């Protein structure tokens, strides 16, 4: 998947072996599902060397979950593109949630698992507060445009940092349609937050609407006009900064 993985555990019992286990799990997922690896199972499936029916249990599960998501997102989620299957849109959140579950089962309570900016969060941070999560500024990667205070949830951002896409409204010539740059979704877990963020982002302007309708999910959408649009319940996660 080619992304940085960060694991932070506050609980005292965390040791090196725990980190090895978690990172080992991500390495396993990467070996199996990376379309950039020639010998990965997904690459073998895409080359027709391996039938899905004969694939591993995890692979078949991911295909099932992808199909389920495709239906739930009204077709805006599809791992098939030009005859090639790339399930990374669903694998990432699934792997993060599995890794977090490994920690939970070992009795850990205060930790997060972050893979490429998608995070599963539990318990409290080092200061004993909820975890502070920043939403990256799509116009400047070094900046944060929102600070959230979160616990026991998943948060994922889908987006693009590219310019262009100047599209005009045919019903109102001259009105430039500003496009969507980034969509952050907070959900009960990272698996659902990630897949719905991905699907909603593909919906364009309707994406934030889609999140609004999802019970238990909130979203923060940033468009080309440097405007943010957010769902009704989003503000309860926003950390109000102290005035100093």
């Amino acid at each position, binding site marked *: 998947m080619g992304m940085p993985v960060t694991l*932070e555990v506050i609980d005292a019992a965390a040791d090196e072996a725990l980190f090895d286990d978690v990172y*080992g799990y991500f390495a396993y997922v990467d070996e199996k599902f990376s379309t950039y690896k020639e010998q990965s199972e997904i690459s073998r499936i895409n080359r027709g060397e391996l039938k899905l029916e004969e694939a591993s249990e995890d692979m078949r599960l991911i295909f099932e979950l992808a199909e389920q998501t495709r239906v739930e997102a009204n077709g805006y989620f599809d791992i098939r593109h030009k005859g090639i299957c*790339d399930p990374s849109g669903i694998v990432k959140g699934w792997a993060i949630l599995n890794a977090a579950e490994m920690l939970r089962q070992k009795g850990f309570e205060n930790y997060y698992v972050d893979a*490429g900016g998608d995070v599963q969060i539990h318990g409290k941070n080092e200061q004993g507060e909820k975890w502070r999560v920043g939403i990256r500024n799509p116009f400047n990667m070094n900046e*944060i445009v929102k600070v959230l205070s979160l616990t026991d949830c998943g948060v994922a951002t889908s987006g693009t940092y590219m310019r262009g896409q100047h599209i005009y409204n045919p019903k109102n010539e001259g009105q430039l349609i500003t496009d969507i740059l980034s969509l952050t979704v907070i959900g009960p877990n990272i698996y659902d937050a990630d897949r719905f963020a991905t699907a909603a982002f593909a919906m364009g302007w309707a994406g934030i609407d889609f999140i609004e309708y999802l019970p238990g999910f909130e979203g923060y959408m940033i468009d080309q006009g440097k405007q943010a649009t957010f769902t009704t319940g989003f503000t309860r996660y926003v950390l109000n900064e102290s005035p100093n």
Partner: protein
Amino acid sequence: MSRNKSNAPSSFSRGIRKFFLSAFVVFSFVAYTVHERLTSTNPGLSPAPITPDTTTGQDALGSAPNSQAQASVSNDPATTPATDAPSAPATNAPAPTDTPVIAPPIQFSTPTAPSLSQGTYKDGTYTGPEVNVFYGLVQVQATVQNGKITDVQFLDYPHDRRTSQQINNFAMPYLQQEALQVQSANVQIISGATLTSEGFSMSLQNALATAH
């Protein structure tokens, strides 16, 4: 016989009444539908029938942390990739009740991200492959002058999505808006888009691989 006759008019009038009542109901329904359609502020979007309520976690106990262990691992080109295929560590759906078997510790490695400042490249223009970023293709072209990257252009990016051309013509009365404001970066975690940037780095990496 006589009974039938005496009954005939009343059943006829009952039929008429039934007919008018049904007609009224049907008309009301049609009128309502037309009204809804005309006044709808949100055309063409039907909320998906989803029941995603799967709470993951145990309650936050808020126990005071007395020590911490932390490690941040990013892409590490130095680690050799594990060659043995490990046994499947998780075979169930990622639901909270899952019991994933822990993977045997294997060496951690992820594909290396391109390090743009490293080394010098041969002058020229290099085009990376199209990389699928799930909702479209990304292709990058890098220009190298005096051994340094002087320009990176997008040759292709996701622009053919039907929805990217969707018209922003529906009001979103319940959604709120604000102008972006940069915040102080006092956070532990940053959530940001990676999808296209992954495609970007993959395509660029391949473009530069040929520039050595």
